[in-house]
């Protein structure tokens, strides 16, 4: 038995540790962000987003189109965008609950930063996949659709819990397909609108903004705090 590794307790009356330098604070901040990202399984999310980008590239390159009208032509690209939004929504799930909320003063900012960064990465991955050509609506439609769907995912994470945030984008996909099949043109179903349509873009931005605000301020629904499916 040795005393190696033991730390001497701080004697009573000793002055508190001096606040760190700017470099120390940066290191602490980086460590906090890294731990947060790891706890949200962001590395796995990045891998999945990269996989979705590859899948989109394969679908466009080998023309995995469904025969039929607009709904059929857009189904596979929209499904892949939905998958990306679902991944972003699920990363909001945290296992720590109350202790994290009580101790983490930076938690809202971390939630906001992670959601924005993942949305940007998802757009980058899918835009890279769309290089294969033939993406319905082009990059602008991709940005609008993905942003709006990510907003829906964040909203559903706030309502149902992070673990079930994926249900919102998936449900929206079905609604979009129904609207495309039956010729609905409401701007709230923005994938059914042309890429330069202002109404669709405004609605998608509103939903994304609402999702980001809610996930930042309130966070995802948690099983310990609220009853829900993630229990």
């Amino acid at each position: 038995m040795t005393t190696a590794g033991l730390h001497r307790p701080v004697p009573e009356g000793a002055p508190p540790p001096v606040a760190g330098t700017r470099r120390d604070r940066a290191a602490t901040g980086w460590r906090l962000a890294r731990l947060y990202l790891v706890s949200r399984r962001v590395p796995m999310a990045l891998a999945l987003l990269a996989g979705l980008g590859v899948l989109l590239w394969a679908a466009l390159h080998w023309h995995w189109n469904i025969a039929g009208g607009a709904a059929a032509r857009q189904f596979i690209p929209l499904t892949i965008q939905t998958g990306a939004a679902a991944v972003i929504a699920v990363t909001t799930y945290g296992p720590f609950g109350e202790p994290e909320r009580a101790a983490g003063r930076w938690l809202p900012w971390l939630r906001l930063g992670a959601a924005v960064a993942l949305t940007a990465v998802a757009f980058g991955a899918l835009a890279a996949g769309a290089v294969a050509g033939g993406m319905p609506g082009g990059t602008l439609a991709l940005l609008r659709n993905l942003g709006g769907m990510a907003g829906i995912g964040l909203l559903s994470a706030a309502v149902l819990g992070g673990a079930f945030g994926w249900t919102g984008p998936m449900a929206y996909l079905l609604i979009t397909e129904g609207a495309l099949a039956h010729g609905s043109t409401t701007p709230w179903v923005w994938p059914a609108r042309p890429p330069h349509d202002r109404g669709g873009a405004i609605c998608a931005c509103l939903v994304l903004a609402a999702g980001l605000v809610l996930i930042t301020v309130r966070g995802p629904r948690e099983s310990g705090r609220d009853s829900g499916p993630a229990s």
Partner: protein
Amino acid sequence: MTAATAAPVRHRTPRATSAIPLNAARLLRIELRRNAMPWILPLIAALFWFDSYRPSTGTAQLYGLRTFWNMGQGHTIIDFGPFVAGVAAWMGSRDGRRGLADLVTVTARPRWAAQLATWAATTIWAVAAYLVFVGVMFAWYAHQSVGGTPPWWWVAVGATAVTAFSAVGFAIGAYWPSRFAAPVAAFIGFLAMALSSQTGFNYTSGWGLILPTNSNGTFDGNAQADSGIFYPWLPDLPIARIIFLAGIAVAALGLTGLPARAGGPWLRRAATVVTLAGVALAGTAVGLADTARLSAHGMVIPALHGAANDEPIAYTPACGRAAGMPVCLNPAYRRWLPDVTAALAPALAEVAGLPGAPVHAIQVAAAYPSGGSGPPQVITLGGHPPVLRLSLGQLDMPGPCGFCGGPIATELFTEQLRLAFAHAFVGMGNGSGSPVQQAVQAALLRGAGIPFAAQPRLLAAAKNGPGAAAGPATGPVYAAARGLATLPAAAGHAWLAAHLAALRAGRLTLKELP
């Protein structure tokens, strides 16, 4: 020996077999209470209403049309399947996510058995919800007096598909205990449905018929409205799909019993057998679907076909009168009887009393297209005495028409029926007829209230669909028709009586017209 008799009697301890089902039932009850599926059901219910029920209400009140979208093209499965797969993956990954895998492995009950209880609870919720939602939808259809019988076999296919999605999702969750297992399982479910639709649209025969969103040969064709009205919904293809989906479910569940921690060697061997049996079942179903052939009443798979399903459905016809002639329809079409009699009355009045004129009109089942000579005629005339046979299932009936540009106007239906009658009366068959037959048809249509100027549009629409380009009502045919139409009614009637047989045989020329 005395010692032996003096020894106390040792009662054998009763085996605990009776406790096993009780424990299993308790475990299942706990899993049912702790399941995540009920939380998702409100969302699925909303989607079901939006995607499966709502579009169907825009179609005519016949089960073949009402259920084309939600059962034939599998939208009830699309609404349920991916979400069920996602939730099942969440439940399947539960022990692994919570770091309890080692703890539950050392309990008395094999881990595979406990996992199956979790899966069973998830599936019970999902299938029960599916049956309730579909039941409510059909009850509402019945309230709206939708004609025919519901496609129950297709409901069974949907319930089995939900079970298969649940099993596959659960297996994904069991093998990959991650928070991302649920969205990935749901995403795979959506992609599977997309690929099923993509492949299904292209396959009108062969193995592609096994895909759950393929409506070819079952809900498609001109006779889609008459399945469950004149003849039963054929169960052959649904049975093959049930076998296929059940095979997938069994194989997926067998896979969850293969890891070392699932149970002892015997249990894992059993899981291997179960997996292989599931694969064999699915493969058998694909092989069965490959043997399917299109009959007049739908897809027939010889190995699964029962002769009893070829028996027509008995019914008491709903009858009315048109120009004094009885017109009888299947009761499922009763709501359109006034439209049919009103449409036929002027045309029948023109030919009343002629030797080849019909004395009775009955509705017959629309047959599935059997290829070769194009779509069958809507109206045929034959027999002694002549009987008019109306295949109304081939027409869009007046009122809502979900898969058309808009509702079908009564005027359009009336014109189509009169054209079909005149076409049949002059004996044109499936072709476009001789010039004389065309001229007499034009004269009959004019007499029935369709002016010459409107006829080219009507003929073009009947041939190439609504909105087809039509030329003017000119040329020798219309000139001859105008000559025939200017005759006094009695003279025209007398000419038709004298020349009807020759007209139908195609032996007349335009010069022989009065």
